[in-house]
């Protein structure tokens, strides 16, 4: 039974599945009221509990996990910040439902430790006193080790994924991710007939910043402008670094009107933000070009990018600090 539990955990591909696999198998190994897995990285606590568990018992379990976690030398965790996911299951026969006033009487809480790093903890909880013995602890620690190893694997995969999709300097999505995302959004838009706008932005006279203040300060400018861009868009939009001082925004379901409004908001925000660089306050501006489906009748995502780029060129040629919309050969 222990072996099949371990196998089920090790082949899980997401956190929820780990808890499900362990939760399904644990009742064959232990008598417990709830089983919890806390993942520090995402402040996520999964509780797999007997369906008759009264809410105060659940709360007590959460508090106990937080308490043990702080005993383990970790920063105190604010209960409010924890995302709690509870899975209620029938773990006991009908005649053994939990007392509505049941309290936490015993627990085993083990840190999930891999390579001297604490990833979280697991807990087995009961409303019965002295519910667990040394053999339970032995089995539970083996399960804990497997969960820790699987979570570590998830963590590694996630950091590889991060490297693959994010720009390390600005924290925005990188060009590769942008291409992929645009592929999906464009397909949805072209086939579904919903609007899609692209905004290409370029920092005006950025070369001068690099040449006069140095590349480190230039990088800081890129980082701060990236933050302004992120703060100015909608939740469903994608902001990516296109290359150098160029950024690109995918605005799904945004017509020309909405795209212009977002771009103009960004232009004004950058223009009105003093950047404190190298003990000086400098003002910067951005130029932007917008393309839109279906207005610009683009037939492919590549064409939509090219159109936004041409509109950006028009904004530059027209004196910078401008937003231009692609309109064929001439831009507005």
């Amino acid at each position, binding site marked *: 039974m222990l072996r099949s539990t371990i196998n089920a955990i090790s082949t899980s591909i997401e956190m929820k599945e780990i808890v499900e696999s362990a939760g399904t198998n644990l009742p064959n190994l232990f008598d417990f009221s709830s089983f919890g897995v806390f993942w520090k990285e995402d402040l996520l606590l999964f509780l797999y509990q007997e369906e008759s568990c009264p809410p105060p018992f659940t709360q007590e379990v959460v508090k106990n996990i937080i308490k*043990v976690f702080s005993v*383990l*030398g970790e920063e105190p965790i604010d209960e409010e910040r924890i995302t709690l996911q509870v899975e209620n299951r029938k773990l006991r026969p009908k005649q053994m439902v939990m007392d509505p006033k049941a309290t936490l009487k015993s627990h*085993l809480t*083990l*840190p999930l430790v891999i390579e*001297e790093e604490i990833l979280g903890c697991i807990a087995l909880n009961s409303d019965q006193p002295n519910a667990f*013995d*040394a053999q339970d602890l032995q089995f539970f620690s083996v399960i*804990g080790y497997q969960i820790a190893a699987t979570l570590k694997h998830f963590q590694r995969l996630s950091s590889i994924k991060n490297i693959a999709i994010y720009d390390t300097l600005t924290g925005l999505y990188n060009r590769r991710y942008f291409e992929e995302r645009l592929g999906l959004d464009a397909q949805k838009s072209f086939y579904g007939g919903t609007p899609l706008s692209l905004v290409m932005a370029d920092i005006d006279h950025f070369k001068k910043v690099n040449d006069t203040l140095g590349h480190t300060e230039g990088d800081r400018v890129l980082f701060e402008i990236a933050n302004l861009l992120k703060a100015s868009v909608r939740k469903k939009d994608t902001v990516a670094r296109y290359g150098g001082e160029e950024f690109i925004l995918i605005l799904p379901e945004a017509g020309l009107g909405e795209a212009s409004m977002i771009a103009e908001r960004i232009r004004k925000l950058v223009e009105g933000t003093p950047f404190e660089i190298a003990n000086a306050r400098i003002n910067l501006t951005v130029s932007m070009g917008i393309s839109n489906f279906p207005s610009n009748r683009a037939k492919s995502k590549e064409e939509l990018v090219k159109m936004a780029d041409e509109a950006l060129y028009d904004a530059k040629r027209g004196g910078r600090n401008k937003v231009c919309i692609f309109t064929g050969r001439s831009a507005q």
Partner: protein
Amino acid sequence: MAPAVKVDKGGKWSSDLVLDLYSNLLTEIWELVSALIGEAILAFLFTLAIRKLGEKYPFLNSLKVSDDGISLDEAREDCRTVAPIEINRGFQSLINHLSQLFSALAEGVINKELFPKVFPKVKEAERIISQK
């Protein structure tokens, strides 16, 4: 049974003797508890306890903890200038702190296994050292 007694020329307990005593005790704790919670968690708890007490008893920082166990080899050098009674206090604090951690994690389950085997030896060590 009391451990073999060695007295240095000054008639005092040598640091080495106290270290031998606790080396055996910690090895016993390691073997017993690692069988219950695994080496990785136990090494983590030892490191945590040492970090907590290392400021008060700096020689504890020279204990080497890994998944293979705990080694006092480096601590011997650092303990040459430390009074045996202080070494005793440091190790007692370490064992007490570990016991508190065990209790926080598994209530009485670990200590129930540990106490009958280890606690008398801790008391015995205290008795021998306090004789001087």
